[in-house]
């Protein structure tokens, strides 16, 4: 099981942003995506996750194994931590493992309403969802925002010891060092040329 | 719009220039004002849509040449 991306081009709002992007991520490996703000990290991850169509190139990995996590954690404030995770477990037809609460330090928050959590705790709950749904290919958009140093280390450990060890794949767009010995991909060279073809505006230029 | 307003309106425009209206009523019968107002309203609407379309077309064309000029310069 590998993630193969060949000659990928993505667009944002009708204008091409990245082009000629090719990389492979083998099972059990992660890939850290770097680049200045606005280069198209989020657009790339949304295209990989299938939320928006690519304008060129191919993305292939086993069907129905992708999961996407962005700045917004998709947490319902009126549900408790357990109910939030139980919902995502039901949606993905998986069981709610207790280990995930230790892995994300949510044990003592089990029955708290998500609305009463701090930003960091909400973030951990959002990431805990990844542990619950059991998806192999993860596309994470700055997962460690609003997390303190200890939580970042905890998340990195979970990623390395649980997810990658199980043969999972992760593509992470982040600015900080996760301490994973994962290859890094800088998107700057793949910035689309101003007159790149393929964007929906192209017919009008 | 109840009917008596309409009949008072008809009397009002009748006083504007009676001989003209006598000829019109002679030609169109008692529904002269209705027919004329229908034609008047429709033609006004047609003229509005045509004029608006033409004006917008001209305005956008001018903007486009301006933008293209700016593009060629830069």
């Amino acid at each position, binding site marked *: 099981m590998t993630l193969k991306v060949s000659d990928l081009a993505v667009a944002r709002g009708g204008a091409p942003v990245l082009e000629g992007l090719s990389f492979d991520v083998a099972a059990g490996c992660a890939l850290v995506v770097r680049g200045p703000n606005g280069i198209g990290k989020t657009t790339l991850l949304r295209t990989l996750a299938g939320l928006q169509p690519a304008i060129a190139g191919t993305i292939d990995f086993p069907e129905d194994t992708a999961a996407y996590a962005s700045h917004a954690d998709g947490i319902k404030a009126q549900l408790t931590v357990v109910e939030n995770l139980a919902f995502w477990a039901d949606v993905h037809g998986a069981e709610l493992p207790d280990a995930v609460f230790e892995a994300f330090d949510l044990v003592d928050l089990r029955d708290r309403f998500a609305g009463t959590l701090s930003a960091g705790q909400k973030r951990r709950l959002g990431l805990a969802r990844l542990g619950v749904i059991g998806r192999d290919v993860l596309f994470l958009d700055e997962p460690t925002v609003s997390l303190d140093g200890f939580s970042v280390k905890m998340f990195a450990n979970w990623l390395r010891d649980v997810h990658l060890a199980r043969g999972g794949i992760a593509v992470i767009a982040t600015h900080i060092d996760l301490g994973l010995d994962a290859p890094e991909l800088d998107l700057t060279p793949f910035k689309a040329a101003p007159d790149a073809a393929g964007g*929906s505006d192209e017919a*009008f230029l | 719009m109840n009917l008596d307003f309409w009949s008072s309106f008809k009397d009002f425009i009748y006083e504007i220039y009676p001989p003209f209206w006598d000829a019109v009523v002679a030609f169109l019968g008692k529904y002269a004002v209705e027919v004329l*107002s229908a*034609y008047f309203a429709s033609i006004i609407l*047609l003229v509005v849509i045509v004029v608006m379309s033409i004006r917008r*077309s001209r305005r*956008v064309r001018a*903007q486009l040449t301006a933008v*293209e000029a700016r593009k060629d310069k830069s």
Partner: protein
Amino acid sequence: MSIWEYANPKKFITTTTPIVPWVLGLSIALLVVGLTWGFFFTPDDFRQGSTVKIIYLHVPAALMAINAWFVMLIASLIWLVRRHHVSALAARAAAPVGIVMTLIALITGAIWGQPMWGTWWAWDPRLTSFLILFLFYLGYMALWEAIEDSDTAADLTSVLCIVGSVFAVLSRYAVNFWNQGLHQGTTVPVATGERSISDIFFVPLVMCMVGFGLLFLALVLMRTATEIRARRIKALEARMRG
């Protein structure tokens, strides 16, 4: 040279720009001749008196109001299937023309019916379905204005047009079911071809219909070209900013 050739915006503009003035001129000429002929040289109806002359505006406008929505439906389908920007922009261009045609049909219908029905608005089923069509047009145009990104707008309005068409036809029959009907029979039933009006009325009527049709065509071509140019301005500005 398949007709998809015209899907290219630049080619569309180069081909249509010269012919629009001609089509517009021809349609205005046809309308002037048709309307004056119908207005001055046709006798009054023994029952309705001179109000029958409103037929030359009401029937063609009503016909074009429905055809305009149909054109928008076809253009939306073409956009969803083949992703040609010209058809999406043509759908957007046709809506204002369609709404004006609907308005004309409503006003002339109300004025025409007023002497017989005794009130300005007698909720006659056919006129009511035009009122509902007017609301559909309003919603369609509002959705176009509400969205910045042109492609998203084109997709959403196409879906709305398709669903709206189904419900417009449903409303058409629901309204018939709801109120027996004061409207006179169809003057020119396209399906059966026989017509309930004598020849002297018929020729100017057809002329007015063709006139309205050409006017619609000219306006849609002109407005589509304008939409293409507006889209080009946005694209160029985005490029220069980018």
